[in-house]
């Protein structure tokens, strides 16, 4: 259904059609003990099951020389709507990570956990283990609705439980219905024998043309970057009452270097709906993308291009045609910031919440700091829950006052860094994984960020900007996992040791950044940023953010909309 255009289908489309609802030959490929990999087609289907085939790129060449195949390991992504899990679930996930993967858990920018480096022979064990923790990995990747993100710190407002429930509802309602997952990973024992059979009433055999992301924000916080979602819901509330949601459509980060037909786009707010229409609106927005999204060119298949190709007016009309009644007019709202509130906070009920800044979301034990051990020991005591944030941070939530000192002690004992001791730049920085595991990485990201921060902090100290809330985001490629085009400073890998430097996004996530320097080295990055930071220290106006400053001073021209991203500044 591509509007009568007689275009060729992308190979992935045929693959989906022939996959018997995402089965392919996965069972056979997983059982082949001669290779740690699986064939390309199965690897594509595997994503719908929340799993990526990767390899340790640090040793790829060396192994090739030794006539060994690459050191394949799988990324397993959990589906965890709103990023909430219980201590019992934490302990299970931790155990699986330590036993079967790189001993690390990684918090993603979509509020969930990733395991890395799980060998093929342990894949089933790990997924069955996740299932035993009452979680799953269905649709954590693939051309479907991905993990639904939701404003964090639910207990700081009476609205949070309600919003989180909606996130969960959106996640569950728009899951694929195929039983392939249970067949392949759980030995064909569906958890609910009366559950639905193999039929995808919403998605159909070809699912969506590309991934689809939904998020819920609660102003004035924009911690999930709601405008980067394909479908963003901005909660509109008064006091403790949720009136409904503004509907924002067509956000997305992914681009391709050198291809100006690709660009990041922020979602457009098109109206308002009351809570009881949330599911209906979502179903139809998904339906429009399913029916009109580009199925010929995957680089042009995201919802944002469907919208820009046909125009918002067309979209509004199409949506109206499908809805029982039109959307209401959007309500006013304002975002202040897209960061997490770090440190301890107490809620109305007297419970405490501690948000820790986790560098790049990587939880592991090193010689310096034992993240996994500390959190394992905390999980054994903790009676509340854990919340992962879309900024790769972690909230230990609903801590009873009596437990606060014990948790403090464990954190100190395992040398967990307190965010207060860091520069604001470091507190907010985000990076994707990149090398050595990500197959898309063109440059280092997670492993590079600490060094870059240390160099930039020298400048911050010298200029008195240590507490200035500057937002820096690094990714190893332009596909956008770390939402780099919303960084006041964005660095996007182009080749080993080379990055495109972007400037000028808004601190509240409402404006994209723009290319400032192309393919520069670490020294160049520091060299380019130093005078601008010095200038900012001297000439900023009270309360002026770094992103706004670089635009006022003409270092960068504002990006008004996605299509404007490549225009010469």
């Amino acid at each position, binding site marked *: 259904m591509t509007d009568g255009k007689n275009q060729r289908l992308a190979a992935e489309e045929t693959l989906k059609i022939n996959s018997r609802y995402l089965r392919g030959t996965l069972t056979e490929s997983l059982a082949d003990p001669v290779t740690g990999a699986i064939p390309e087609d199965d690897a594509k289907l595997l994503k719908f099951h929340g799993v990526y085939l990767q390899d340790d790129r640090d040793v790829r060449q060396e192994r*090739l020389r030794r006539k060994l195949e690459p050191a394949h390991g799988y990324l397993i992504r959990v589906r965890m709507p709103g990023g909430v899990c219980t201590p019992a679930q934490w302990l299970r996930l931790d155990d699986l990570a330590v036993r079967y993967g790189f001993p690390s858990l990684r918090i993603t920018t979509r509020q969930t956990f990733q395991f890395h480096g799980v*060998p093929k022979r342990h894949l089933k064990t790990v997924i069955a283990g996740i299932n035993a923790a009452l979680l799953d990995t269905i649709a954590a990747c693939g051309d479907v609705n991905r993990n639904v993100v939701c404003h964090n710190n639910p207990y700081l407002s009476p609205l949070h439980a309600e919003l989180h429930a909606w996130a969960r509802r959106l996640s569950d309602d728009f899951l694929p219905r195929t039983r392939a997952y249970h067949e392949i990973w759980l030995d064909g024992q569906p958890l609910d024998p009366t559950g639905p059979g193999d039929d995808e009433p919403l998605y159909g055999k070809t699912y969506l043309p590309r991934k689809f992301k939904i998020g819920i924000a609660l102003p004035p916080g924009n911690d999930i970057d709601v405008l980067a979602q394909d479908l963003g819901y901005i909660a509109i509330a008064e006091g403790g009452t949720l009136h409904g949601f503004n509907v924002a459509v067509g956000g997305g980060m992914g681009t391709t270097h050198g291809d100006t037909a690709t660009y990041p786009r922020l979602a457009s707010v098109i109206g308002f709906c009351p809570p009881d229409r949330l599911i209906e609106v979502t179903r139809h927005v998904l339906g429009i993308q399913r029916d009109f999204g580009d199925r010929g060119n995957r680089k042009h298949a995201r919802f944002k291009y469907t919208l820009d190709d046909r125009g918002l007016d067309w979209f509004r009309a199409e949506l109206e045609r499908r809805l029982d009644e039109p959307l209401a007019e959007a309500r006013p709202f304002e975002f202040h910031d897209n960061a997490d509130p770090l440190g301890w906070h107490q809620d109305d009920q007297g419970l405490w919440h501690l948000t820790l800044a986790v560098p790049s979301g990587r939880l592991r034990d090193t010689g310096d700091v034992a993240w996994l051990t500390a959190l394992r020991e905390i999980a054994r005591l903790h009676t509340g829950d854990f919340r992962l944030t879309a900024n790769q941070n972690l909230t230990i939530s609903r801590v009873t006052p009596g437990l606060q000192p014990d948790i403090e002690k464990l954190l100190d004992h395992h040398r967990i860094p307190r965010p207060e001791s860091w520069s604001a730049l470091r507190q907010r920085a985000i990076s994707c994984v990149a090398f050595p595991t990500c197959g898309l990485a063109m440059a280092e990201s997670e492993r590079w960020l600490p060094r870059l921060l240390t160099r930039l902090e020298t400048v911050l100290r010298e200029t008195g900007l240590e507490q200035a809330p500057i937002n820096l985001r690094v990714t190893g490629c332009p596909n956008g996992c770390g939402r780099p085009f919303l960084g006041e400073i964005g660095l996007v890998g182009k080749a080993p040791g080379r990055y495109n430097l972007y400037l000028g996004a808004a601190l509240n996530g409402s404006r994209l950044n723009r290319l400032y320097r192309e393919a520069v080295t670490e020294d160049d990055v520091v060299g380019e940023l130093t005078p601008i930071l010095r200038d900012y220290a001297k000439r900023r106006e009270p309360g002026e953010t770094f992103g706004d400053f670089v635009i006022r001073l003409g270092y960068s021209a504002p990006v008004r909309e996605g299509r404007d991203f490549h225009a010469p500044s």
Partner: protein
Amino acid sequence: MATHMSDTGGPLTPQQWQTLISLLSSLTPDQRRWLSGFVAGFSALDGALPLSAPGPARQESAAGITLLYGSQTGNAEQLARRFHDHLVQAGQSVRLESMAGYKPAQIKRERLLLIVVSTHGEGEPPDNAQGFYTFLHNTRAPRLEHLRYAVLGLGDSSYEHFCKTGRDFDERLAALGAEAIAERVDCDIDYEAGADAWFEQILARLSQIREAVGTVVMGGGPSSEASRHSRKNPFPAPLLENLPLTAPASSKDIRHIALSIADSGLRYTPGDALGIVPGNRPEQVDELLKALHLYHADTVTGPSGATLSLEKALLSEYEITTVSRAFLEHYAALAASARLGALLKPDQRGELQDWLRGREILDVVREYPVTGLKGQQFVSLLRRLPPRLYSIASSGMADPDEVHLTVAVVRYEAHGVSRHGVASTFLADRVEMGGTVPVYVQENPNFRLPSDPATPVIMIGPGTGVAPFRAFLAEREATGATGRNWLFFGDRRFDHDFLYQSEWLAYRRKGLLTRIDVAFSRDTAEKVYVQHRILEHARTLYAWLEQGAHVYVCGDAARMAPDVHAALCEVLVREGGRSPEQAQEEWLALKAGKRYQRDVY
């Protein structure tokens, strides 16, 4: 053979037929096999005669076009596949390979090479092109005067080193003497038009040069004279490659050793072993001389009667590690040691064996010093340094100028001293690249591929026992043998110890390796070995036997071979309804009929 065919001359004249028959009946089996490949390659030349005596014919690259791709994101591969299909449709004989799957040494035998390669990052070759790229850019890369080629580069002009890899290949091939048949084209991210234009050029040129390709001299002719080299007169074979095969984290160190036997006249058949005449470790010699209170420069008369320094004699003439009974008897007398004397009593064999475990000559000399021992006296106690045999892991048909070995480097500790296998550490540590190793071929007529190329083979070779099967498969590929091939391999860990894994996978993709079953003993709580896999697949294995499969076992004689033999017997019991005794007898009969061959040590 001749009588069977005597009245069927086919399209030949009686005179041609006569000539052919008299030639065929004079050939050895090896010569016949070579000839069959040659005839196949010859017919692909469209009737043009080679100008000089041909070398071993190669199924794949003797006369056709080889199309290689190096691809990071898949674009170059996709293009190469498209070109390949076009060329095939155009009636060209063309072989498509990824640069990673291509044996670089084959380039010496290529006539027409097309390259489609992308550039990655800051001017880097794609991952799967790096090996071939390095090979060509090495100072030891062969001259390629008889090669014609064309290069298509893919890249992204927003990068500084746009299409650098394509350019590098082009310039390097030209520098090595090859002749470009078309201008290189460098394509940007919208590569389609440029790629098509390049390919049009190629198609246009191909018709003009087809004839020329068919008539060039085929390289690497075999020497017709029998080799002068033997155990007594080994050939100094230059070391070409010394590659670790196990991952750095492995508990083992297994090497792939490639030696050049170009111009040596040495010939071998898969199944043969290579004799290596090693030298002892200089450190070991130093230690020994120190313990003996003797000097390096002392002179002795060596085993051949020549006078040489004691150091030289210990380095290269005598066995100086393993303690033989004869050595111990003579040495015990010199040392006048009651303890040694007691150990040598006939009823003390067990004790002696225990005592000898992990001890070398150096240990004996240190523990029981003999004062005033002369150099000549000492060497007279020693055996000549014996050559060590390694199963050959290559096929002369696939790599005529090379011989490959799979060598487990022996290093361990005993009695507080680190020990080193003489030959394995000689190959792994002491021969420099380009340095030489004295070698000769040790024939093994009892370990041979079936003479009928259609016969299926089952190969059981855990650890370095897999070496001859690498040779078998390379041979079967090179000769176009149609029989099915089944390999059982085992080792400790999948991640670290899967010897030649990428080659087996490539053979499996090509369909040459019909099946491969593996057992890694340390990946699971319960240890699994190849014999367990044999039993798991008993039904299939029995079916293969019924279809006439030959079974080969290579490797450890102490435990693996008996366990595998028991499993093979069990297969006949389980699937063939034989009694255990019948099964034993049947395997004996298969052995006698050369359908069950073992090379165990």
